[in-house]
């Protein structure tokens, strides 16, 4: 069954191309690891002498620290408010997930099972809202959340905003899944005299577990990775989320690259793991037509 013939390119050439591509891909990640393990705040891998030779420069490019130290990780958790930021991020992301799932599951169920006036309008409005550019709603949201509701620099404010960002995608996703669950079970339960709420809680939700899990992980990633809204709403340093905090290390005139690198690794590990777990759902879900700004 081998498809190789004389027209095929030699595998050595393909390996060479792949190797270069992989090197370019992996290098920035190795770079971050190197800086994180260097124990220093500099963004140079090695200190250069005043008149560096080519070998010195080569040393400064190879992603391996001059001396391995965990000092950056240690002081990240002891001297820096990073623990606090991580906790903020975790709370915000978890609350976003819970609230988002609750709202999306109920709404998705109604859209899937009931026929009522304005159903199509409601569904379409969720879709259209994905087209609003984030910046346009950012100004009014800032006025509403910070000035009117007084929720600036609070986790509650951020959770509310993130939840509404995640809802439309989650509603569509769950509605689609509910549609695939056969109605026979529900009808049988209805005959037995079960209330709609019982049916929803006891029958539909357990059956929809896989979809709910994916939606939950998606909401969690939204909350965990978001940067602009958090940077706009969180003014106080102790209320930063992890993304805003990481930016704080290397933004403006601050040059604490060691802390940034160590923090970046800690923040990325769970998200990269989640990503590989979720990959195939992401591809199908994202190409389904979300146009979020």
């Amino acid at each position: 069954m081998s498809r190789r013939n004389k027209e095929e390119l030699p595998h050595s050439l393909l390996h060479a191309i792949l190797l270069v591509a992989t090197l370019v891909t992996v290098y920035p990640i190795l770079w971050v690891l190197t800086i994180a393990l260097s124990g220093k705040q500099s963004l140079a891998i090695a200190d250069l002498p005043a008149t560096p030779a080519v070998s010195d420069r080569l040393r400064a490019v190879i992603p391996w620290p001059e001396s391995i130290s965990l000092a950056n990780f240690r002081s990240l958790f002891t001297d820096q408010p990073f623990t606090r930021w991580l906790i903020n991020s975790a709370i915000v992301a978890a609350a976003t997930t819970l609230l988002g799932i609750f709202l999306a599951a109920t709404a998705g169920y109604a859209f899937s099972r009931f026929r009522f006036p304005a159903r199509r309008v409601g569904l379409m409005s969720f879709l259209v809202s994905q087209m609003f550019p984030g910046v346009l709603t950012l100004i009014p949201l800032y006025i509403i959340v910070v000035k009117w509701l007084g929720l600036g620099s609070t986790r509650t404010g951020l959770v509310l905003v993130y939840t509404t960002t995640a809802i439309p995608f989650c509603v569509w996703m769950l509605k689609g899944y509910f549609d695939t669950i056969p109605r026979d079970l529900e009808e049988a339960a209805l005959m037995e005299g079960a209330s709609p709420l019982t049916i929803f809680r006891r029958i539909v939700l357990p059956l929809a577990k896989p979809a709910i899990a994916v939606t939950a992980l998606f909401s969690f990633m939204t909350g965990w990775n978001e940067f602009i809204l958090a940077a706009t709403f969180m003014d106080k340093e102790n209320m930063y989320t992890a993304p805003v905090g990481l930016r704080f290390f290397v933004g403006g005139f601050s040059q604490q690259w060691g802390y940034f690198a160590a923090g970046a690794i800690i923040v990325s590990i769970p998200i990269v793991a989640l990503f590989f777990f979720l990959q195939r759902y992401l591809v199908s879900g994202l190409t389904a037509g979300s146009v979020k700004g």
Partner: protein
Amino acid sequence: MKSAPSHRLRFGIGLALALALGIGLDVLLLAGARAADARVRAERQAIVTLNALTDVVVGAGISGDPVRTAVAAWSKSHPSLAAIRVIVFDGISLEASTDPKDSGDRAAPRRLSREEKDAYDRGQRLRASVETNRQEGAARKEEIEVGAADRGALDLAAPLEKDGEVAGMLEIRTATPPPPAPIPVTTALLYFFAPLAVYAAAAPLLGERRAPLAVAASLLLAVVLFLFARQTLRILDADRVETDRQVAARVGQETGLAGGLVAPGAAAVNPAKWDTDVFRHPRPGAAATPPGGAERRGRNVFFGVAIGAFALLAFFGLGLAARLGATLSRHRVAYLYIVPAMLAMIVLVFFPFLYGVAISFTQQTIYNTGQPLSHLWVGLQNYGHILGDFAVAKRAPDGSLAFNYLNFYWTLLFTIVWTVSNVTIGVTVGLLLALILNTAGLKLRPIYRVLLILPWAMPNYITALIWKGMFHRQFGVINQVIQIFGGQPISWFDKPFTSFLTALSTNGWLSFPFMMVISLGALQSIPGEIYEAARVEGASRWQQFRAITLPSLKPSLIPAIIISVVWTFNMFNIIFLVTGGEPGGSTEILITQAYKFAFERYRYGYAAAYSVIIFLILLAYGTVQNRVTRATEGL
């Protein structure tokens, strides 16, 4: 139908609610307007007194015993003043004071104490304002400061001049004003119940016929609202006349008093110049003010309220409310499930969107968010400024082109270049790698695949910051590599083109895996037999690619390209964190530019208009995209 709906009852309820809305709002507006008028009246009277006393104190020579005598006499005849203070800059002294706090060992004259620095600063501020206004020959800065003291009292300050220089300051604090006029509850109730009684009496005569009932209810509502509005406007008008009368009376009273206190011929006491605004410009007399502006605005407001009331009447009277209620109760389970999510979306997505569109028609900035939008309304001005400014580039004196990077069309052009080049790179690299990875029998494929997907998995703000570090001029790895090959280090963020390259490589790095995964999925679904058949027919590799691979990729690649165009167009984090628009805003894309107008230049109205334009561009793109997708599906 068993229980026919009672038109009589519906119009009755509609009329009651419409009256409650109309009269209630009118009463609230009246109370607000009267309070505002009372404030204006108190301020004008206080300014008259302040200006008169300024003339007196200046006439008495600003400092010394004559001033203290004059101030004491003035205070005695003015129960409406809680305190008078005269401060002279020369020696930083409190020359005279009737403030109860300045008694005993703190009695005037004395040097100002350290805690009273605020008062001294206030004086210096006034001096600066007067000097600026004189130099510019204009009234740009306020020469009288009006502040609020406790419980509605006013705290005013004016500069004292001697020999053409501001040499001191006069402060007065008014006594607590009388309580505001009460809300006319009885009148309002009368206006509310009288028409209802008339309706209740007349409705049985009209029977259960819809048209006559509607006419009767509308007529009653119109008449009552008109009468009430007219009465309200009259009250406000009377208030204004009364204000002018009281101010004139105050001027007369102060004239007599000042004449007695100032030695004849010592200085000019000029009552004609007492009724001024805070720039010390005389107010036009009552006769000269046309009743236009304020009155017309008042009438418009009442008109708006009336429209709202009529809408309410129609809503209930025509049975729309009943039908809505019936629908809601029939599908109450469904609505109950949807309400929480819908409510959240309305409050935090749809309302902000509409509010943002509204802001785009105003000149709102961070400094005037407190004002209602209607006061800041500028119509399409923001759009005109954004879209009507074609001055992208200017010829500098030496003949070179100088670009205006804040210009909309520059940013639009840059965004398009940015999007096209990124998507091209993403598709090319992704497709190429997918084709290689799809080679049968290639070793280590899974490992390559996992490593090549990594950039997609990383949070993109982290990617952006990493690349920013790697492009650092002095310590960045990329400049080290350039130097290894004997090149000169590059200041990446100093030139638009190199700055663009940094963002492009960052985004290229993180966006090709998406295209690769999509292409790989599509490639793997092509059955091998087709290629076998093609080879048997003698098709070359290129022909196979053209005839088999590309068409099979199309259904998944085109949606992927469409979505990644939108992603790149909106790729806020990369631009914001890598180039930050450097140099000089040349590498901003539309949404980062809109963000900077809002949160760095604080021009909310302008930024909102900018965002609406972005939205319209995306909307147009979405529509075209829909057409294209449908067209390609047809193939």
